[in-house]
Every structure is written in structure tokens, then in C-alpha cells.
């Protein structure tokens, strides 16, 4: 084992775990205040349910030997997963690192169905989805499955995490249906600073996500770190210029979105492209997501927080450009199209399509199956008054009011102060 690698993976794992609360703020700021807590809880609850189930089942399905399609059950309940080395770090630490990916991937889906999906159905959905959809695809790409055998490149999860979550989000948005006032009213963010906070904290965490995916404190991690810093910077520049050209305003929601799009796009490429490649990739990635977002807002698809435009489009662009810009001079192993290896792009396309197909079909089946037992949608009245109250019994913000407990008997009853009749009489 290598202690420096352990140090780096300890902190990387902590950072990736923190991305889920960060996502809660990124998403939570974009909804209306009556749904703020519900939206945040959709991320936080993944830390619990997906976290526990990953340790019990998901890790084995994804990373136990098994076959090309799925891992076997040899590591269920963390059997045979201890402090022995897995690579250069303790096996349990590797399990944790991968667990944080499962947690955030499941939480990402929530962006498509906020403000209307019933919380209980959501919890059941993401719990099963992690087992049935996420774990197998993780196995294909990182667990020795068929896509890894085919040579698909996905450094930190463009396909496994982002495309996968985005397709599930698209399916969920369709199955759950649109918000009742969608397209009748401009549903605008209640707290943009929260969204900026989320974007900033996501970037911090993403260094663990991408550079941690080197699973070592080495040159590969440094490369992934560099590209994770440069690509979103380029996306932010291009997005800001697009915003300024189109409407003469550089929006803050746009900036937060740009950062996430740049991070998503560089994810599959992080350890494969060089720094200038990262700038190019980040800059290019801004355009399709920017257009997808504008276009989506005009359709009847209520992918409320644009998971598809950010993670689906951004992830796909990143996965394909990995096949174009991969640079052996930096990664030491493989070139992309522009460096003379067109075959890589073909493999990337297959990987993307396979993930889309599997995630789409299985997410649909899952949601329909859950819908047989649990209503997927909140009641109209609950949707109108907000899910914070109906699903969680809480209000996100309460100002200036001391409110009686229902249980408490009315206070007074004792001596009521003498009432100055004369004074009152004066007015009538």
C-alpha cells in the first residue's frame, strides 16, 4: 500500500461525498421556496438509502468479479472487503470512494422531477435504480465488464454517472409528468446564491471526483486535476459570451450551469486529454448544452432543472470528445481521433448508446413497476401548497413569528386584565 495514495483517496472520497449536499444547494436554489426542503431532501436522502445499499449490495454487483454484464454476489454485505490492499489503498476505502459516486448519481436524477414527485416513491426509485441500473453500468465500464474490455474510455464517469443519470431523469420527467403550472407560469429560482454556492462546492468536490479517479496521488491525478480546473473555466467564458451576445446579460444561473456543464464534459476525459485539449473541450461543450437548455424551455418536457441539457448533453459531448482529443503524450496509453486513432470515437459512441439504452429502458420499467404500488405524483393540493409542507411537514423559512403549539392549552384563562370600557366606548 502507498500512504500518499491513501491520503489522497481519503480526502478525495470526503470531497465527493460533499458533492451531494452541494447538489442539494445547486438544485434547492432553483426551485420555489415552497419546495426548497423537498428538493434538498431528495439529495440528502440518497446519502442514507443509496449509501447503505451500496455497501450491502451495490458494490458487489458493480465491482465483484462476475461476468461481463454484472458483478457476482461475492462481496455482498462487504464480505471479503476489508483493509487489505485494492491497488495501493485499503479495499474498504476504494469501496467508499465508489459509493460516493453511486450516491450522487442517484441524486442527480431528482432535478428532473422536483416540485411534484412524491417523496416515498422517489426514495424507493433511487434505491432500486442504484442496484438495477447504476451498479451494472458501473460494472461494464469500471468493474471489468464488456465496455471496459472493448476499451471504452470513461475516466471518472461521463457515461456511468452523467449520461446514465440524465437518461433516467428524462424517463422520470416523462413518467411523472409535468408540474401543473409548467408553461403557464415562469417558475423562477427562489435563491440564486444557493445555486452559486452549490456550483462552487460542486467544483471543489469534483476535484476529488476526477483527480481521485486516478486512485493514486500521481501524475495522472495531476493531469485530471488540471483538466478539471481548465475545462469549466473555458465553458464559463464561452457561456458568458453566449449569454452576453444573445441577451446582453450574463446571468448568474447561467454561470452556475456553465460550471457544471464544463465539469460534466471533462469528467470522462479528465485523465486522457492534455490541458489545451481540456480548454478546447470545455469551450466546445458550452454550445450544445446552451442551445439544448434554451430549446428544452420551449418544449413541453418538464425536465425541471435541466438534467438532460447539463448532464445528458454535456456528458455525451464529453464522452465523444474524449475519443477525439485523448492524447497519449499526456495519458501514456491512448490517442483519440485528432491524434490519429479514429477507432476510439467509435468505441465511445457504442458505450454512450449502450448506457442510454439500458438506463432508459430499465428506468422506465422501474418507474412503471413502482407506480403500481405507490403513486408517483403528489396530489394537486399538495403540489400547490408546496411539497415542503405536504411531504415533510416543514417550512424552509419562517420569519418573525412565535407560533403556538397545537398541543399546548391556551395560555390566558387566568385573571384577564381589567378592560377600560370608557376608552373603547369613546370611538363608536
Amino acid at each position, binding site marked *: 500500500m502507498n500512504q500518499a495514495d491513501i491520503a489522497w483517496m481519503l480526502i478525495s472520497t470526503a470531497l465527493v461525498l460533499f458533492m451531494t449536499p452541494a447538489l442539494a444547494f445547486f438544485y434547492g436554489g432553483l426551485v420555489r421556496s*415552497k419546495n426548497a426542503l423537498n428538493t434538498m431532501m431528495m439529495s440528502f436522502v440518497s446519502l442514507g438509502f443509496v449509501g447503505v445499499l451500496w455497501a450491502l449490495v451495490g458494490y458487489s454487483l458493480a465491482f465483484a468479479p462476475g461476468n461481463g454484464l454484472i458483478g457476482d454476489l461475492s462481496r455482498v454485505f462487504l464480505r471479503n472487503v476489508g483493509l487489505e490492499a485494492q491497488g495501493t489503498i485499503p479495499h474498504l476505502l476504494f469501496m467508499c470512494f465508489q459509493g460516493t459516486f453511486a450516491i450522487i448519481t442517484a441524486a442527480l436524477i431528482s432535478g428532473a422531477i422536483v416540485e411534484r414527485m412524491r417523496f416515498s416513491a422517489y426514495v424507493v426509485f433511487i434505491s432500486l435504480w442504484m442496484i438495477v441500473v447504476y451498479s451494472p453500468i458501473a460494472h461494464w465500464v469500471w468493474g471489468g465488464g464488456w465496455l471496459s474490455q472493448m476499451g471504452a474510455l470513461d475516466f471518472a464517469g461521463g457515461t456511468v454517472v452523467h449520461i446514465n443519470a440524465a437518461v433516467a431523469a428524462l424517463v422520470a420527467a416523462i413518467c411523472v409528468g409535468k408540474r401543473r403550472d409548467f408553461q403557464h*407560469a415562469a417558475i423562477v429560482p427562489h435563491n440564486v446564491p444557493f445555486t452559486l454556492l452549490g456550483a462552487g462546492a460542486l467544483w471543489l468536490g469534483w476535484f476529488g471526483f476526477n483527480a481521485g479517479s486516478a486512485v493514486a496521488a500521481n501524475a495522472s491525478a495531476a493531469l485530471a486535476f488540471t483538466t478539471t480546473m481548465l475545462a469549466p473555466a473555458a465553458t464559463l467564458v464561452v457561456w458568458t459570451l453566449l449569454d452576453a451576445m444573445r441577451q446582453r446579460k450574463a446571468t448568474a444561473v447561467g454561470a452556475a450551469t456553465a460550471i457544471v456543464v464544463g465539469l460534466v464534459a471533462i469528467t470522462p476525459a479528465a485523465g486522457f486529454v492534455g490541458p489545451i485539449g481540456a480548454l478546447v473541450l470545455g469551450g466546445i461543450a458550452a454550445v450544445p448544452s446552451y442551445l439544448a437548455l434554451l430549446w428544452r424551455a420551449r418544449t413541453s418536457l418538464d425536465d425541471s432543472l435541466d438534467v438532460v441539457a447539463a448532464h445528458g448533453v454535456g456528458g455525451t459531448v464529453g464522452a465523444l470528445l474524449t475519443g477525439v482529443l485523448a492524447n497519449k503524450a499526456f495519458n501514456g496509453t491512448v490517442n483519440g481521433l485528432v491524434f490519429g486513432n479514429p477507432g476510439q470515437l467509435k468505441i465511445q459512441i457504442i458505450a454512450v448508446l449502450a448506457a442510454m439504452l439500458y438506463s432508459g429502458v430499465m428506468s422506465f420499467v422501474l418507474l412503471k413497476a413502482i407506480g403500481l404500488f405507490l403513486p408517483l405524483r403528489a396530489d394537486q393540493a399538495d403540489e400547490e401548497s408546496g411539497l415542503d409542507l405536504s411531504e415533510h411537514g*416543514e*417550512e424552509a423559512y419562517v420569519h418573525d413569528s412565535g*407560533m*403556538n403549539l*397545537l398541543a399546548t392549552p391556551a395560555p390566558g384563562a387566568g385573571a384577564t386584565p381589567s378592560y377600560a370600557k370608557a376608552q373603547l366606548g369613546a370611538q363608536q
Partner: protein
Amino acid sequence: MKLIKCIVRTDKLTETADALESLGVSGLTIMDVRGRGSTRTTALYRGRPYPAFLHMTAIDVVIDDDLVDDVIRVVLDRARTGVNGDGRVLIMDLENCYTIRTRQGGVA
């Protein structure tokens, strides 16, 4: 001159405001209020329920007397869902209303 105070569901704000506009009432002042009436909600803290208020939006409009009927009709039409919690429309007499910019009294 009258002051009409419409206490409506927050998500009926735009529909109501647009309807008023179609009557030629384009100026209005809104504020966030909370209320209770036949509809009550409770929230929880540390496992104990407490009464929460409904979030409503109050729309204040100053109008000439001859518009009162139309304004009320339009608000009752547009802000209504028929479900408890739709709100109230209050009609008050106004002695005058000055437009600060022009210093003129009267509806402007």
C-alpha cells in the same frame, strides 16, 4: 376612488394581474402575506405540530369608482379555484391617491 385589496393564492398572481390589465388597470402593488381561515395547515418541529399559515399574495389596486364592478368580477373569475383557500377581495373607499412623480391626485 377605491382601493381594492385582493388576497389571492400566490400562483394566481399573474393570471389576476393580467386580467386586471385587460381592464386597463395596469398599476398595482403586491405584497407577500400569510393567512388562515377555513383552511388550516400544520407543520412539525421536533415531532410536535404547530399551526402554519398559508402563503398568499395581496394585490392592492387603486381604481376609479366606475371600475369597481368589473375589477371584482374579473378577480373573482380569475383567482378562483373553488377549493378552500382561494382568498378574499376587500373594497375600501379612498379619499385620494397622488402620483408622486406628477404630484397629481386622482387615479393615474
